[in-house]
């Protein structure tokens, strides 16, 4: 028997795929045609730049994005009596507008989301009753609530003014009121920025100012966290009210002499129930002997304490990060070092949502053994370093890169590591461009191997006998991943072809033999297990404007973030019973004019970074049909 916990009911979805309903497809086609035909807008110049006029030199930028998604679910187990969740449609509209008048910018982002069907739809209610019995209370396939809605949104539609801001900008002074982003240092202390590729957006709502002079910068900010509630990319599943927390802080950067930068910063916050804070600073020296750059940042975290509350926070923590970069001719060397000990802003039980508050450097060039960024990146007790060498020959357009990482992580990150581990990760890459006549060839290939040598954690005095027993039976002897990727692009005149492929082979050895059933149904007992993941994208681009791409992915990875519509990148669900799945999807991207982009995807899509049409983005898992029309004017 495999030993990890069973999957949650809503997470493990596999088996037979359902196809979209044709009548919905017709609606989508109609929508696309209407929007495509209606897009002839161009730049809006609200007035000539003349002194003394109210709207002098004003511009209005509007970006309108429409998304239609038809979500199709997979049957978790076709042989049982439980039907697959019913398919549903999502319609999302985002309007972003910036009005700029001289140094002032007034901006808004307005989102609208709606899903169908709902229980008020008689046909859906009847279908639900057929499947679950006439006495069963009808449940919406996708429920929207959102901030300000105590109950489900009426008609399952939600309109949100997500962002609003007023900015003043001059060469030496900037001020912002409303929503703004903030990143302190190298992200160890605080990083609240928009992640456009996964449409994760957690801003602060309040005020901020920046004073920008040659020798000194000063920044101060205060505001409440304001996470964006409606997502274009991720599934809007059961949007719920959000809690807002107060943050305040600032920094001073000083450049006393050329090539020397000093910085101090501080942040106070109430992300947990207890007010906490951090202070830190950095020093950077550039071009030492015209050959070396050095940077170091240190942070001390002070966590609020209240013995009456059941929050087990350490009193303090710290995060240290440093780099040394050396360069000589075609060679660039980079050494990174980190030590994080209880250096998280948000310390709570359960998974921490990544990319929300702080994003310290991970050292990893590739996301490796686990894509669980909660664990491998933001460990609470890790020390490590990475050395990278890079040779670049401009004449031949050749880049050879190699790196090796070593780290000791004392924190368990289930399900992949339930104990501390020592990690080694060598990695190498070749990047080559060749130009012959009208033909351009670009080749990039990389290969790496990471091995984790686990070691037992010392159970403290508070560990129960049951926990000691669990730790002893869930010990991994070692874990590894072999990974490679290749990217071949050929361009002949107006025609471009590209093949991008990623492969990862995960393997681990257990301390004790375990038994489980193979796909064939036979029972097997051994110490070894593993899985592979392979992603391929083949694309053709005409004139840099029209792209057709075919995606072929395969995985037997039990982390089912890659299955169905069950979640987002970073929102992982482990399914020990998952066997394998292939994903086939096709997409069309058309950018006939800069102001317009049409996008259509159909099929099944594995989560991960996808590069097609010359642009990269991280996509969530999805099965179904989705289209997007983005209009800027």
């Amino acid at each position: 028997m495999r030993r990890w916990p069973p999957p949650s009911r809503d997470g493990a979805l596999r088996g037979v795929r359902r196809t979209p309903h044709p009548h919905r497809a017709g609606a989508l086609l109609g929508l696309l045609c209407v929007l495509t035909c209606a897009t002839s807008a161009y730049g809006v110049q609200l007035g000539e730049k003349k002194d003394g006029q109210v709207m002098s030199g004003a511009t209005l930028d509007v970006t309108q994005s429409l998304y239609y998604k038809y979500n199709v679910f997979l049957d978790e187990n076709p042989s049982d009596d439980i039907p697959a969740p019913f398919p549903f449609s999502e319609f999302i509209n985002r309007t972003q507008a910036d009005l700029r008048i001289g140094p002032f910018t007034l901006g808004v982002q307005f989102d609208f989301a709606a899903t169908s069907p709902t229980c008020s739809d008689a046909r859906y209610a009847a279908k639900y009753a057929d499947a679950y019995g006439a006495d069963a209370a009808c449940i919406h396939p996708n429920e929207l609530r959102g901030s300000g809605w105590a109950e489900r949104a009426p008609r399952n539609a939600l309109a949100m003014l997500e962002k609003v801001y007023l900015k003043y900008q001059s060469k030496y002074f900037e001020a912002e009121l409303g929503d703004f982003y903030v990143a302190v240092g190298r992200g160890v202390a605080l990083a609240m920025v928009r992640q456009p590729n996964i449409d994760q957006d957690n801003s602060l709502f309040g005020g901020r100012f920046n004073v920008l002079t040659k020798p000194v910068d000063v920044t101060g900010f205060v505001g409440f966290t304001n996470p964006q509630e409606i997502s274009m990319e991720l599934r809007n599943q059961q949007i719920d009210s959000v809690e807002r927390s107060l943050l305040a802080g600032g920094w001073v950067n000083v450049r006393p002499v050329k090539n020397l930068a000093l910085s101090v910063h501080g942040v106070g916050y109430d992300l947990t129930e207890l007010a906490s804070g951090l202070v830190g600073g950095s020093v950077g020296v550039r071009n030492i002997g015209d050959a070396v750059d050095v940077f170091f940042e240190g942070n001390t975290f002070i966590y609020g304490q209240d013995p009456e509350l059941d929050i087990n926070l350490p009193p303090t923590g710290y995060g240290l990060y440093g780099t040394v970069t050396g360069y000589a001719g075609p060679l660039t060397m980079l050494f990174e070092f980190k030590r994080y000990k209880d250096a998280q802003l948000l310390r709570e039980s359960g998974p921490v949502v990544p990319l929300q508050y702080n994003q310290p450097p991970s050292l990893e060039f590739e996301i490796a053994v686990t894509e669980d960024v909660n664990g491998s990146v933001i460990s609470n007790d890790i020390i490590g370093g990475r050395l990278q060498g890079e040779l670049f020959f401009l004449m031949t357009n050749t880049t050879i890169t190699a790196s090796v990482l070593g780290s000791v992580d004392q924190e368990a990150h289930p399900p992949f590591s339930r104990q501390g581990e020592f990690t080694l990760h060598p990695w190498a890459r070749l990047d080559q461009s060749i130009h012959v006549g009208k033909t351009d060839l670009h080749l990039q290939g990389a290969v790496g191997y990471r091995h984790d040598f686990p070691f037992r954690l010392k159970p403290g005095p508070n560990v129960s006998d049951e926990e000691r027993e669990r730790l002893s039976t869930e010990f991994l002897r070692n874990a590894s991943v072999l990974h490679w990727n290749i990217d071949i692009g050929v361009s002949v005149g107006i025609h471009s072809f590209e093949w991008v492929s990623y492969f990862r082979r995960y393997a681990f050895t257990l301390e004790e033999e375990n038994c489980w059933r193979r796909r064939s149904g036979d029972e097997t007992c051994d110490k070894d297990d593993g899985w592979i993941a392979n992603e391929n994208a083949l694309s053709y681009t005409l004139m840099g404007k029209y792209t057709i791409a075919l995606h072929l992915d395969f995985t037997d990875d039990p982390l089912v973030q890659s299955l169905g519509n069950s979640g987002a990148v970073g929102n992982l669900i482990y399914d020990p019973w998952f066997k394998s799945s292939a994903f086939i999807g096709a997409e069309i991207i058309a950018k006939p004019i800069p102001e317009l982009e049409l996008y259509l995807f159909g099929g099944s899509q594995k989560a991960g970074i996808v590069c097609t049409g010359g642009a990269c983005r991280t996509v969530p898992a999805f099965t179904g049909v989705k289209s997007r029309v983005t209009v800027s004017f």
Partner: protein
Amino acid sequence: MRLIATLFLALLVAAPTLAVAEEAAEGATTYPPASDFTLPSLAGENVALSDSLGEKVVVLSFWANWCAPCLKEMPKLVKMQEEFGDQVKIFWISVDDSRDEAKVSAIAKRFKLPEDQVLKDFERKVVSVYHKRGVPPFTVVIDKNSLKVMEKLGYTEGDEKKIHEKVAAAL
């Protein structure tokens, strides 16, 4: 499948029409003005776009260390900068996370980018003004009248020729 085939057909039919619309529109378009900004450079100092506008043609190249097309485009733009010299100023604006500054710096060294022309938009305040979706690579050409005469999302081999043409025409 019938749906996808139908949509594909619709796009193929619509594409030439839209392309013609673009050509027709080019002659009549009033180019929008570029927004000013101040960002820190890898060299450490704050750089204001307005310091370069007016006298030079400016190219903004938004990129990230994980973006393979961006790294393909980078040496092409370096050559362009060398070819045009002082007449043109290219800013390579990194939209990475602040935690990746060491990687940004190493890439800048690799391609020998001038440090004062590599700008750090780690809070994405500039890219969000120039392109709401903010996905690199994204290239903007600004003429001497401070107007955005070209905005291009994505990079495929050969795109640098289009950028080159726009820059040369703007000189």
